[in-house]
């Protein structure tokens, strides 16, 4: 169950597992500590998702060259 914490933080667990992990999290201090550690990793990955088109008025340079 503990290794679900990464998938939980990323929001990619399937619904039933997501709910099961939420219940597990209530009682597992190890996973609570890992949740805090990993909580901002997805934000770093978001920088990859958004980098090529940060905003509509700011086209990526690789496209305009």
């Amino acid at each position, binding site marked *: 169950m503990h*290794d*679900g*914490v*990464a*998938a*939980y*933080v*990323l*929001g*990619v*667990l*399937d619904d039933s*597992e*997501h709910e099961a992990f939420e219940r597990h*999290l*209530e009682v597992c201090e190890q996973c*609570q500590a890992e*949740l*805090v*550690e*990993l*909580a*901002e*990793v*997805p*934000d*770093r*990955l*978001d*920088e*990859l*998702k*958004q*980098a*090529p*088109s*940060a*905003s509509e008025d*700011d086209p*990526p*340079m*690789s496209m305009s060259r």
Partner: protein
Amino acid sequence: MCPVLSHLDGRFESADAEAEHRIAVLYQEFGGPLLRHVRKSTGNDLQWAEDVVQETLVRAWRNSARLQWEPGLLWAWLLTVARRIVIDGRRRKSVRPHEVEPPEVDMMAVPDGSERALSAIVVADALRSLSDEHREVIEQTYLRDRTISEAAAILGIPPGTVKSRLYYGIRALRELLRDKGVAG
């Protein structure tokens, strides 16, 4: 005179008042930071971000056990809940055109001189230096808005393996980012 009803009425009133107070405190404590955070993942869609924040705080408010947590843990949980709501929303609504095809890692880091682009280069480098197995599960789940079981079907490996690789991959990624000074 009906003691049971009047008793219930009294309880409901005070419960409502208490609930209102608690949700007001939640908004005061976390509403602003959470909105700023969520806006980044809604592509600056403010209306959507506000809906996500509201839904997140209502879920927290309904879950009194969570509210006993220390602020760092509660914040981490709120971020995670909000992220899940955004992902669910993105899966439901038609995605923005530029999000239809998630970029490959090689073309992700576009240098435009901004701090975020520099940071994106660092993150892309860190992702590339993971093992193929670890990088693959991160790409096939989070970066493509897919669940564990969807990614497992595509990769042809059991869901439990995806979940486990994701755990070690994300831990490794976090270590790399921390060494490079961009982990949160």
